[in-house]
């Protein structure tokens, strides 16, 4: 996803001199090509996330389009109040790019995991929140963010996430994507864990459960239509996210279900309190209750 992000940003910045890559001293060699070819459109703001965010808002005041990039946790929590006051409240054309979704920095531990960002950012005014599931979707999200004249947060994985799309597809901000049809259960998910969800769906089909998979790449504004439709057409909904169980996609879907008085079985899985342990990303997900096996088990628990 990181590579897809940088390639797309490079492409945009090559065409539009107002596009800026702004970083908080991370990215190291991955920015080399960009720095070499577009040095005037590259700003390393140093290890100072709060300053980076408010400074980017000032740049936007003068018509620049800064893509401010750092580890999601440092953006969404450390610079939170700057995102609120300087970017969202003043409705500035700043793109906030958080790398390391969920526990993808799996060797680093709790300080570097980005698992509360949706909960923190969902209430903020004017902010579009994008959460691509695959490298191809990253490209579409970055281009879409560029087209939006206002604040956008993009949640990125790290690297080597598998592709979940077999070919090109229609992408629209605020519109979920049905990746697989099914009539018993709908799995609603976001981010790179969508790949695991598709794998779990295959397992469920083997067990005779007709499983629909919906990818929500836009957390705000969320696609109410595709979710309500799934609630009406399938017997059960399970949300799966690499985010705290509190305040993320599952919470957003729960709000929709209760406000629309939808009669559907419903369950959520996500991360509880901190992410525990170290290891490979997949190992860490499994150890923290959001592995493929956990998805299948949760469907059985919820019933359909």
């Amino acid at each position, binding site marked *: 996803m990181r590579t897809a992000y940088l390639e797309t940003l490079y492409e945009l910045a090559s065409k539009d001199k107002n596009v800026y890559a702004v970083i908080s001293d991370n990215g190291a060699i991955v920015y080399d090509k960009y720095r070499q070819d577009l040095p*005037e459109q590259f*700003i390393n*703001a*140093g290890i*100072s996330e*709060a*300053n980076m*965010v*408010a*400074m*980017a*808002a*000032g*740049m*936007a*005041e*003068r*018509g*620049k389009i*800064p893509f401010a990039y750092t580890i999601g946790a440092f953006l969404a929590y450390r610079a939170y*109040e*700057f995102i609120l*006051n*300087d970017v969202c*409240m*003043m409705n500035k054309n700043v793109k906030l790019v958080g790398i390391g979704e969920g526990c993808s920095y799996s060797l680093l531990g709790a300080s570097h995991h980005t698992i509360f960002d949706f909960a923190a950012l969902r209430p903020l005014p004017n902010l579009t929140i994008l959460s691509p599931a695959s490298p191809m979707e990253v490209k579409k999200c970055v281009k879409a963010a560029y087209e939006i004249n206002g604040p956008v947060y993009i949640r990125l994985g790290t690297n080597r996430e598998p592709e979940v799309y077999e070919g090109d597809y229609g992408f629209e901000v605020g519109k979920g994507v049905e990746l697989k049809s099914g009539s018993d259960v709908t799995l609603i998910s976001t981010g790179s864990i969508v790949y695991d969800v598709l794998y779990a769906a295959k397992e469920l089909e083997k067990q005779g459960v007709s499983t629909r998979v919906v990818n929500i790449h836009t957390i705000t504004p969320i696609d109410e239509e595709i979710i309500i439709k799934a609630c009406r057409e399938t017997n059960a909904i399970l949300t799966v996210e690499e985010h705290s169980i509190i305040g993320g996609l599952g919470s957003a879907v729960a709000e929709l279900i209760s406000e629309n008085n939808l009669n559907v079985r419903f369950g959520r899985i996500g991360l509880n309190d901190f992410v525990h342990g170290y290891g490979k990303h997949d190992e860490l997900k499994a150890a923290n209750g959001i592995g493929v096996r956990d998805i299948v088990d949760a469907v059985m628990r919820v019933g359909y």
Partner: protein
Amino acid sequence: MGDLMTIQDRALKIRQQILKMSMGANGGHIAPSYSMTDIVAELFFDDILTYDPKKPEWEDRDYFILSKGHGVLALYAALSMAGFFPEEKLYTFGRVGSELGSLARAHSVPGVEASTGSLGHGLSYAAGIALALKKDNKKNRVYALLGDGECEEGSVWEAVMFASHNRLDNLTIIVDYNGLQAMDSLQNIMSLGDFSGKFRSFGLDAADIDGHNFDEIKEALLRAKGNAQSGSGKPMAIVAHTVKGKGISFMENVPIWHYRIPNEQELEIALKELKMTKEDLGDYEKLSYRNVI
């Protein structure tokens, strides 16, 4: 004739309007506005800031970012005096339906550039504007007015480092160094030591001045402009030594006046010292929240 007013006249008028706004709303930060009144008067009315009140968002304007948002009464008064909006609008301050609040919202009031009040934001925002101007080879200047207590925020120093490293000599920091924060003196809470020296050590040009002496304010502001013209690459920090509550004797240097409105006896003294009468305040008792609540 407005144009014949001296800078001293203007500063006095700003202080009078601040009192009137506050009495009308029964709220607002009087003393933090008084310590920066002379600085604002100098910026707006002595050919320092370039602006066009008919085009508040004119792209060639200079930017004034009030990072110490609590002094906004002085900014409102200056903007109205400069012609950004009629004086009557000032006296809607703090009322339901008014855009004039005790902390300002960007662009909701003509001439107000940024939503400030949460401290430690404005300088980073100003630095971003200054950087973008440099990228476009524009000559506009950016001024950020900070509180001294505000400089306890770490983000201020992130921004100072950034401005210095990026050679933003189109950026001028003015610190309203009145020595008091909400609860007590800085000396008792978080002393700043060699304050202008701190800025110098970050690579800025810095000057200590009397923030109520118009000649000294002007000289420092012109020095900042000169630094840019000579291509020094150095942002300027002006540490303006001021008196919180300047202009009303019983408010001066008394922490409680950070946010307090005079009672009837105090008001009499204040009016006298500001060369006003009670009639100048208008119908404040009837209009104020005192009688609404």
